């Protein structure tokens, strides 16, 4: 098991390094530079000074090496668009916000989705099934910004139940989370439904029936456990995504999260932020895959025993 983990960590680092390098050169290849996107009219001397201060006048390779050196000391650099802010601090301040919304949305989407999927599967081709499938379809096809705009108008203007925008109280969480959980909910409902249907047709369910096991226990112990396993794989990769946030939802509800920050940074050509955030996102993603693999190995006896042998 230890060897398994170690090997995976090594792969993880290699991938991370490749991603960092690729992002670095890609970001610097976009036309425009941070200073022009911020200030329209700039005398040449000031621009040169600015470029010098941040090292942009150096050849790209030199900048790259310096960047890697900085990275190894844990310094992700300073934002250009927002002088004085360290990328690490930006992550520390904004990531939890995105994380909370994303995390709660994922949890709700997961839990409710799984439940709906089971209900749909157990009532195959009857009205609960059809209802859940329609909802899932809507959830997948309606664009987030449409849904968010509608929810925002209905629940903050027509029937003012929640604050329109902003962040800070539990009330501010409701609408953004509602918007964000629709996607995962739809996915998990459909996935779980097909998983349950698949398991239900398996022979060991028949065996359980033949043993006189109550249908409740068949669902809870036999069907659920086996159809749930594939969903864990899905959720692991989603977990990484919660910190990158949703640009659309954060813009519409004016939430100070990482998603909006990241996209804005690209528009502003804020190189250090783009790079820094990309590293964080990639790292989190890879880490979550690793955790997922380990988790699956623990939970699914077939994988665990295969690995042990």
């Amino acid at each position, binding site marked *: 098991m230890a060897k398994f983990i170690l090997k995976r960590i090594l792969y993880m680092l290699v991938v991370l390094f490749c991603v960092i390098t690729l992002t670095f050169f890609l970001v610097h290849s976009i036309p425009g530079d941070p200073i022009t996107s911020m200030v329209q009219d700039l005398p040449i001397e000031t621009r040169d000074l600015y470029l010098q*201060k941040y090292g942009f006048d150096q050849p790209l390779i030199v900048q790259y090496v310096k960047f890697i050196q900085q990275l190894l000391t844990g310094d992700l650099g300073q934002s250009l668009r927002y*002088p*004085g802010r360290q990328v690490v601090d930006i992550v520390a301040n904004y990531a939890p916000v995105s994380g909370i919304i994303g995390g709660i949305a994922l949890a709700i989407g997961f839990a409710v989705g799984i439940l709906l999927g089971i209900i749909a599967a157990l009532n195959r081709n009857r009205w609960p099934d059809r209802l859940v499938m329609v909802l899932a379809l809507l959830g997948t096809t309606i664009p987030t910004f449409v849904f968010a705009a509608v929810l925002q108008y209905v629940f903050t203007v027509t029937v003012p139940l929640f604050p*329109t*925008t*902003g962040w800070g109280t539990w009330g501010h969480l409701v609408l953004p989370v509602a918007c964000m959980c629709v996607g995962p909910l739809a996915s998990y409902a459909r996935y779980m439904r097909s998983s349950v249907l698949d398991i239900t047709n398996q022979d060991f369910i028949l065996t359980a029936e033949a043993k006189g096991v109550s249908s409740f226990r068949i669902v809870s112990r036999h069907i659920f456990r086996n159809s749930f396993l594939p969903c864990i794989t899905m959720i692991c990769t989603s977990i990484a995504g919660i910190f990158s946030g949703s640009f659309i939802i954060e813009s519409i509800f004016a939430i100070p*999260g990482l998603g909006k920050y990241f996209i804005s940074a690209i528009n502003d050509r804020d190189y250090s932020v783009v790079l820094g955030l990309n590293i964080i996102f990639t790292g989190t993603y890879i880490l979550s895959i690793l955790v997922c693999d380990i988790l699956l190995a623990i939970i699914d006896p077939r994988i665990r025993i295969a690995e042990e042998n």
Partner: protein
Amino acid sequence: MKRKLSLLLALMMMVTLFAGCNKALQNPDENMNNNNDNKEQGQTSDGKDTNQYLNVYLSAEPSVLDVARFVGVVDRNMFFNVLEPLTRIENGEVVGAGAESWDISDDGLTYTFHLRENYWTDGQKVTAQDYITALQRQCDPNNAFPHVSDYNTIENFVAISSGEADVSTLGASAPDENTLVLKLNAPNVALLSSTDFFPDRADIAEKYGDTLGTEASNMMCCGPYTLESWTHNSQLVLTKNDKYWDADSFDIQKVTMLIIPDSNAQLASLENGSLDYLGVSTPEYVEKFQARDDMDEMMLSSARTSMVIFNCEDSVFSNEKVRQAFSLALDRDALAEVITNGTATPAYSLVPPDCQVGNLNFRENVEEPLTALAKEVDDPKALLIEGMQELGLGDDPSKLTVKFAWGATTAQARTYSELYQQLWQEALGCTVELEFNDSATHQSNVNAGNFQMASMSWGANYEPQFQLSRWSTEVGGQSRWKNADYVSLVTEASQTSDEQKRLELYGQAEELLIREAAIAPVYFMASRRFYYSYVNGLNANTFDTTSFKGVYTSGR
């Protein structure tokens, strides 16, 4: 065992999530979300509410609230709330603020300011040295201050900022703590109306270093308001500074500035009262708000000109007649109507109607140059053909293809630029290709001279000097229009203290710019602001920098 482990893991996750929730939900400032705190509202004898507060919209997150490193106009406007500049503009006139009075030497090179008694919020006095500290930090090459050119008339400012001179040579001194002397390298009649001199605390700057101005706690205020809290990308809260010398003129105790990026969210916030006022341009909403009894409307001029700039170094647009033809071919009424729903005014000149030359209004005294040109030219197409022939491109406009670059990639952008395309193609018979880029790329292309025609807009300051001087740079501004006469006119004007004479010089400069069609002005931008009727005293003067002076709510 496995089961217990997984249960434990799940429990831990939930606890962490919950704790994280609580922490992130907590804010340094408790009244963060009490936009409507202290619900009990009474009225004083003069009809004003006892509880005076405002919820306003802020267009973007401030980059950094440090006078030596700030990037944009959002930051600058914030300084007028929390710091005290030497002068402000009130009711369209320059008035003393941090400075009670000032003397200008006869040659216009020395300004002596006599400071008013004012204090920082930690009790320390605002001294002349503080204003000098700001200038010193602004010209420090290490800070890479983006707005160096705004201060280029101060002796040695530019030289110091490019590292060629030592900071000790700066033309600013403080003979005593209440007197500030600025030395200029050339007379600049627009100095006080167009340049902002804010004070800065050297000890605070040193204490916080790079993080100065990144948090509410990392800065010091001395203006009508203090920055009480700053939740990045979310909101800023200003509270009234009772120690301010003019505190009596300010009724609003607390201003909550909400940063709302999405336009629908902004409109929804205005509609349900989360915002007290807002600029609205969407036609459906304009109608909706106009129909409401509890809202009023005011037009605000933006003092900004939307224009098409021509690249005078381009093979096609190096010819004046070609440029003039393209400028005259535009139906400015149609463009203003379609793109801005009639809020903008068609422009046949560069300088917007808000600009003043001293006490004289520029536009009232100077005829719009393009109107005169339009009278002289019957048919822009014929003019184009003449220009083409001069360039040796034949006489058939249908064989001419040119590019028009637009600095946005939204669906709206396409519609608007297509209107330009249509107008040109119909009037001139040539082919216009459209190019779209995001604003950063667009700016970069324009600055590099990588365009033929580009859409652009420039804001103006109090005096026409700022706007006109965009084309008096070495390369000829974004149009790359090198005209020595123009440069000398603008420079001379900026040093002429006689208002009438100055007006004439600016007028001549503008005429050159428009006649030779370095740019084609399109319209003067304006906006429509809707505000709840309980808000009184909102300022419609374009250049005023009086913060929330005179604003109060009554009957909220």
